[in-house]
């Protein structure tokens, strides 16, 4: 997808825009990819919302939940729900964490009516970054620039989990000087799966190997994804194998403007 000239293509310019968005920073971003958090904040600011960051946030509980430790996950989730209780909107640069809140909190609190209620309220106002920009704000062009050829990798949690496939693509098509290439089997899992990559290393490696091969085959210079885990997995593999392809988060791409260094 080629980006044409810089055009204001906001879909609903006279729509009353939300006022406040609370940043929800996933653990992997917090500790390993903090610049992705920064990019997210800048993108949201540029989109015209007021951004805040509830400092008491720690973790959404996804890791414990997926390991089967529901009791622990519930405690963490209650803390999380408390932290974001007062927020109008909660936005995270990760499909898996948003999926946790929207789809798995109701499972976690299945037998706790009050928790279930709070989870429902929170779920309705929690969004992944690209879906928030496109579906809630109606923005598809942020005036970003990113010269080069790139492919987009769909994370399982974002595409199949939340049904978010078009939004990232639409946003990328608006990025100036960015040439999007075809990625074979873009929706196939990259093999991260959190603890899976540690518990079943051989299979995980085979999966990331295939994914990396597809990325290299596409001729892209950049691998873009909206999922921090996938980026660390595929990007980490590409780097160790000495490939030139750079893995970047979509927030970084959308935050980038010609002649500006925000890093």
């Amino acid at each position: 997808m080629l980006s044409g000239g810089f055009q204001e293509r906001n879909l609903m310019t006279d729509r009353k825009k939300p006022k406040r968005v609370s940043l929800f920073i996933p653990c992997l971003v917090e500790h390993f990819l903090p610049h992705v958090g920064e990019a997210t904040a800048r993108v949201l600011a540029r989109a015209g919302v007021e951004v805040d960051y509830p400092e008491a946030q720690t973790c959404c509980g996804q890791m414990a939940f997926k390991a089967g430790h529901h009791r622990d996950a519930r405690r963490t989730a209650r803390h999380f729900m408390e932290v974001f209780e007062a927020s109008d909107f909660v936005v995270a640069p990760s499909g898996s964490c948003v999926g946790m809140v929207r789809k798995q909190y109701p499972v976690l609190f299945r037998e706790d009516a009050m928790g279930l209620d709070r989870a429902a309220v929170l779920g309705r106002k929690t969004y992944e970054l690209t879906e928030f920009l496109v579906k809630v704000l109606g923005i598809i062009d942020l005036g970003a620039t990113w010269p080069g050829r790139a492919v987009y990798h769909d994370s399982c949690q974002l595409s199949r989990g939340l049904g978010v496939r078009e939004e990232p693509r639409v946003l990328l098509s608006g990025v100036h000087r960015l040439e999007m290439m075809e990625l074979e089997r873009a929706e196939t899992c990259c093999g991260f799966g959190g603890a899976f990559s540690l518990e079943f290393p051989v299979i995980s490696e085979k999966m990331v190997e295939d994914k990396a091969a597809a990325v290299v085959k596409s001729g892209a210079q950049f691998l873009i994804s909206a999922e921090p885990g996938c980026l660390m997995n595929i990007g980490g593999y590409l780097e160790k194998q000495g490939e030139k392809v750079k893995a970047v988060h979509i927030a970084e791409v959308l935050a980038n403007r010609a002649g500006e260094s925000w890093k």
Partner: protein
Amino acid sequence: MEVKTEQFKEMAAKAACNETLNRTLRHAGESFRALREKGFSQLEDPEGSRRRGHEVKDRCLSRLPELLRLLEENVIEAGGVVHWARDASEARRIIMDLVKQYGVRTIVKGKSMMTEEIALNKELTRKGIEVWETDLGEFIVQLAGESPSHIIAPAIHMNREEVACLFEKKLGVDYTEDPEALTMIARRVLREKFLGADMGITGGNMAVAETGTLALFENEGNIRFATSLPRVHVALIGLEKVVGTWDDFGALLNLLPRSAAGQKMPTYLSLITGPKKAGEEDGPEAFHLILLDNGRSRILGDTVLRESLFCLRCGACLNVCPVYERAGGHSYGWVYSGPIGMLLNSALLPPGKARDLAFASTLCGACAEVCPVLIDHPKIILDIRRRLSEDPLWKGRLALEEVLPMKVYAWLSLHPGLFRSAALLARTFQTLMTSSGRWKWLPGTLARWGEKRRIPLLKKPFRTRWPGLEKAIRGGRKKH
């Protein structure tokens, strides 16, 4: 069938390094996926059809007591006999009694996962009965002394050279690698067996209570043979195969052949109602239907696991699973493999026996996306994981090093101040343990991760950057 689910990790790792197997499974997956897509694209309303399939299975399972009775009544009225087996050993005993009753020496079998569940062949062979698998793939794995590795294509893990050697050795024929020639050899050998067999044993895809009819789907014709030539036909089905009406059947007919191989119809669909009628020259004199529980009545009452009984055995989930593609069917260690295998093996075997299977998933959801009856595999897998962690019946012994890091992290997550301090501590540790951006030492599993990937470094956490960031955003807002 022997249970080897505890060896999953080992067997899967080995299979993943087998280049030939990799290529085969990858090619098979791609082919089946393309067929399925074509098949479903021909439906007017694919999503509606899947929802209807889900609804039919849900309703029929909810009405199972009534439907079982009705099925029995109608099978008996049609001249058949109905047996009830609580578990594998009871089922085997029923079959052995029938073998004795009818003086059976040779049995021909259609493909049936149920007969694998009850380990029937071994028992029959032990008692000196000649048993012949007649589905080509099953015939091949039987000769090889192996078990099937895929629901639809049992011998998919073997290449033509292996089959050629096998036939040469076990059947005494000239060596040939040509699939057509090999198939014709099997046809010749098995035809002789069909003509001389005393009993045909099949499974069943569905049993329609409305008329007491067993529905059998196939493409080869071996099931037609097994149900037309021998004197006795014994069909073994799980309780969950029963549907109420022919309309229910129709809804599932819409889905099964398309989902399995992109077909509108299987080549042969045999609707069997009792034995042959007076005057017929082909068909069994006696029809025996065995209804097997083997844990299903228990699963039926489990609100989460129950959905795994909706399975139509189409194999679509296997064909999209990236883990199955690399691990192959045998790694799953029991009758069922792939995503549905994770569910059924976990549900039917003693709780916790198939522990590794529940964790050998990235929860990518490709399976749920293609399931014709909308089974939500990831949801069920997550609940199995919950039981493995918190349900005394499933737990078993959990290793400390498996649990401790999670517990510590979970506790820290409740205390933001400590969370921040812990991060600082971790970064200090990192400074000590790295040089020029490379880790010098890490605990086992993390180090293993770093064999093929660059291990990420802990950075100054986002929360420490926020104050500066906030100013920049607020200050620069006017420009934007």
